[in-house]
C-alpha cells in the first residue's frame, strides 16, 4: 500500500513505456520550426496559424507556405519551462491574467519581439523561436476567444489577418442532417474567398492538383490515426496519453511533410498492434487502473504522469479535441474546396446521432461516454483550466453523466495548460490513494449493474 502511495524515488526504470514510433513524429514538428526559421532567413514568408481543423492548413501547404502554430509553440514554451517571461509580458501589456495560456504566451511573445527586441526573436525563445508573421490565420473553431487574441496581435504586427469560419457543431440544431449542405455551401464560399486572398497576398496561384493530393494524404493520415485510437482500446492499454500528445501535431495540423508523417503513423499503428498482440502495456508497471484524461494536458508538468504510472495508473485515452474522427468518404465530390469543407466539418458532427439516441444534450459528454465505454475506463482525470472556458465549461457535465450513466468517478484537479503556477502535483498525489478506493468501489458497482468492467 505504502509503496503505491509513495513511489520510490530511487526507481531508475522509465515508468512510461514509450513507443519507439513516437519519436520520429515528435521530431517532425520540432524540425518544422527549424525549417520555417531557415526559410524565413532566406526571405520566405511565415504564416502564423491557429488550430483550424484542416480547412486552413491544407491550402497553405498546397501553396508551399511555411506555417507555425503559436498554440503549439506555447506548449513547447511550457514544456521547456520558458513560459513565464512571456506570460508576464502579456500581463504587463494590460491583458487580463485569466485569459488563455496559449493566448498570453503568444501575445507576450509578440510584445517582447516587437517592443523589447526591435522585431528580433527573443533570445530565450526555445527552438529558435517563430519568425515574424506574413499572415495571421485566425479561427474561432472550438473556442471563441482564439480569434480575439489573434485580432489583438495587430497591436504588434502589420500582417493581415484572416479569420476562418466553421459552423458551430456542438448543438442539436447544428447537427440536423437537412443543414449539412447549407453548412458545406457556407464553408466552400469562405474557402474560395480565403484561397483567392492567399493568391493575392502571396502573389502566386493555388496549386489545385497539389491540394487534391494533400487532401488524399490527410484522409489517409486520419484513417491511420483513428485506427491507432481503435487499437488503443486493448487491455492493457498499449499507448500512454503522453505518447499521443507528443506525436499528434502531424495529424492535428499536418506538421511537416505529410508523406513522411503518414509513414510514421503507419509504423506507429504497427507498433501499437504488435503491443496489443503481446499484451504489452503503455506503462512499465502493472496496469491497475485505466484512466481517461480530460481535456487539455498540463504541458509544464508531463513528467508528473510518470509518478502516476508508477502507481499503475495507465492513461489509455485523452483529449478528444485533439483526435480526428474517421474521415468521411470524399470520393463522390470533385471540388477540392468541398472535399476540404466536408473533411473539416466532419470533426464533430459525427457525434450527434449517438447523442440523440442517448438523450444527451452536450456532444462532448456523449463523446466521452463513448470513449469511456470503448476503453473500459476506471476513472476520469478532469483537468479544468483556470484560463480556458472552452475546454473546461463542459467538464462538470461530463463528470456528472459519466457517474450517472456508467458509474465512473472523476478526479478533479484544477490547473492550466501553460501556467504551472496554478498546478499542485503534491496535492494530486495526496489524493491518489483515496481515488483508488473510489475507483475500486465503482468497479463493484458497475459489476453489480451488469457492466463488464
Amino acid at each position, binding site marked *: 500500500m505504502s509503496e503505491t502511495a509513495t513511489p520510490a524515488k530511487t526507481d531508475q526504470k522509465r515508468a512510461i513505456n514509450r513507443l519507439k514510433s513516437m519519436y520520429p513524429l515528435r521530431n517532425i514538428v520540432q524540425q518544422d520550426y527549424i525549417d520555417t526559421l531557415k526559410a524565413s532567413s532566406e526571405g520566405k514568408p511565415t504564416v502564423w496559424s491557429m488550430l483550424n481543423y484542416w480547412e486552413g492548413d491544407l491550402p497553405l501547404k498546397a501553396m508551399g507556405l511555411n506555417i507555425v502554430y503559436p498554440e503549439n509553440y506555447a506548449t513547447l514554451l511550457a514544456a521547456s519551462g520558458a513560459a513565464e517571461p512571456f506570460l508576464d509580458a502579456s500581463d504587463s501589456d494590460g491583458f487580463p491574467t485569466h485569459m488563455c495560456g496559449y493566448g498570453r504566451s503568444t501575445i507576450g511573445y509578440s510584445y517582447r519581439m516587437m517592443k523589447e527586441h526591435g522585431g528580433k526573436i527573443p533570445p530565450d525563445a526555445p527552438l529558435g523561436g517563430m519568425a515574424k508573421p506574413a499572415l495571421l490565420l485566425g479561427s474561432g473553431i472550438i473556442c471563441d476567444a482564439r480569434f480575439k487574441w489573434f485580432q489583438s496581435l495587430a497591436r504588434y504586427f502589420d500582417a493581415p489577418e484572416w479569420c476562418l469560419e466553421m459552423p458551430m457543431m456542438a448543438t442539436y440544431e447544428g447537427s440536423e442532417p437537412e443543414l449539412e449542405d447549407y453548412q458545406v455551401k457556407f464553408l466552400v464560399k469562405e474557402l474560395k474567398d480565403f484561397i483567392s486572398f492567399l493568391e493575392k497576398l502571396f502573389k502566386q496561384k493555388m496549386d489545385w492538383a497539389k491540394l487534391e493530393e494533400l487532401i488524399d494524404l490527410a484522409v489517409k493520415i486520419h484513417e491511420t490515426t483513428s485506427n491507432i485510437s481503435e487499437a488503443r482500446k486493448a487491455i492493457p492499454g498499449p499507448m500512454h496519453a503522453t505518447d499521443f500528445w507528443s506525436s499528434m501535431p502531424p495529424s492535428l495540423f499536418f506538421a511537416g511533410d505529410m508523406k513522411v508523417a503518414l509513414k510514421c503513423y503507419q509504423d506507429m499503428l504497427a507498433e501499437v498492434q504488435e503491443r496489443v498482440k503481446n499484451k504489452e502495456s503503455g506503462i512499465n508497471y502493472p496496469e491497475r487502473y485505466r484512466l481517461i484524461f480530460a481535456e487539455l494536458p498540463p504541458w509544464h508538468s508531463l513528467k508528473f504522469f510518470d509518478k502516476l504510472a508508477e502507481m499503475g495508473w495507465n492513461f489509455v485515452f485523452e483529449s478528444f479535441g485533439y483526435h480526428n474522427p474517421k474521415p468521411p468518404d470524399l470520393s463522390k465530390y470533385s471540388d477540392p474546396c468541398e472535399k476540404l469543407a466536408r473533411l473539416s466539418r466532419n470533426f464533430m458532427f459525427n457525434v450527434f446521432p449517438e447523442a440523440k439516441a442517448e438523450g444527451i444534450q452536450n456532444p462532448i459528454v456523449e463523446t466521452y461516454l463513448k470513449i469511456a465505454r470503448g476503453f473500459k475506463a476506471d476513472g476520469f482525470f478532469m483537468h479544468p483550466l*483556470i484560463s480556458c472556458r472552452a475546454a473546461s465549461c463542459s467538464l462538470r457535465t461530463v463528470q456528472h453523466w459519466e457517474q450517472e450513466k456508467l458509474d465512473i468517478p472523476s478526479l478533479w484537479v484544477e490547473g492550466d495548460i501553460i501556467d504551472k503556477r496554478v498546478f499542485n502535483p503534491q496535492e494530486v498525489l*495526496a*489524493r491518489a490513494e483515496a481515488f483508488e478506493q473510489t475507483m475500486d468501489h465503482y468497479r463493484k458497482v458497475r459489476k453489480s449493474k451488469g457492466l463488464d468492467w
Partner: protein
Amino acid sequence: MSACYLGIDIGAAASKAVVIDSQKRIIGGGVIPSGTNYVTTAAAVKAEALEQAGLQPADITFSAATGIGGRNAGADSYHGVIICDARGVNLTFPGARTIIDIGGQGSQVITMDENGRVINFNVSEICATGSARLLHVVARILQISIDEIGPLSLRATKPSSFSTSCTVFLETEVITRISQGDSPEDILAGIHRSIADKISGMSRGVTLEKDFATIGGGALDIGLVQAIDEKLGVKSLVPGNPRLMAALGAAVIASEH
C-alpha cells in the same frame, strides 16, 4: 506486551499524533503547532503521544503518517488525508457515511462504506472559501480569539450576507460590513453561512448519505457546524477531538500491517 500503533498527521497549522492498542483503543494523543521543521515537529508530537500512553518509541509496532508534511514524519508508511479521515471517523462513528472535513488549508467532503473505504470525495477548489483559515483572518480583523467565534456567532440576529466566493474578496467584504456597522456576531454568522454554502456546493457529484460527521479544526466552531447542518438539513456528529481524526485513521491503517 500487546502491539501498539502510531498515527501522525502533520498539517499546515497543527500536527497531531495518536497511539492505539491492538483493540484500536486510543491510549495516547497529542496536538502541537506544526512550526517550520517537520522532522522535529513529528518527533515532538510523537513523544507527547507516547508519553501520554506511557510507552517508549520501541513499543510502536508500526506507524503511519498523513498530512501535508507527513512524508517528513519518519513513519513506516504515508497515506493521503482523505483515506485517513475515513478510517478515523469509521472507527469513531461506525454509522457515519459522509465526512465533512473543514481544515485550515481547505475542506473536503468524503463519502465512505461501512468499512471506512472511500466511495467518493470532493476537495475545495482553488478559489473556494470553504476553509477554516478564513475564520482566523476574520477573527484577527475583529480582534477576538478563535474560541470566541462559535458562541459569539450563535447570538447573531441578522447574519450579514456575503456574495463573493474568493477568500480575499470576502475579507474585504468583511471590512466593508464592519464599516457599515454590522455586529461581529452577524458577520461571523454570515461567514459561517458562506462557508456552509461552499461545502454544500462541494457535494456535487457525491451522493451524501447519513450519518454525517463534521471534523477538522472547523468542527471546533459550533457556529460553523450548526450552519453546515442547517444548510445540508442534517444533524452531524462531532468527535470529542475533531482534529485528531486523520491521525487516528493513520494509526488504524498502521494497525493493519
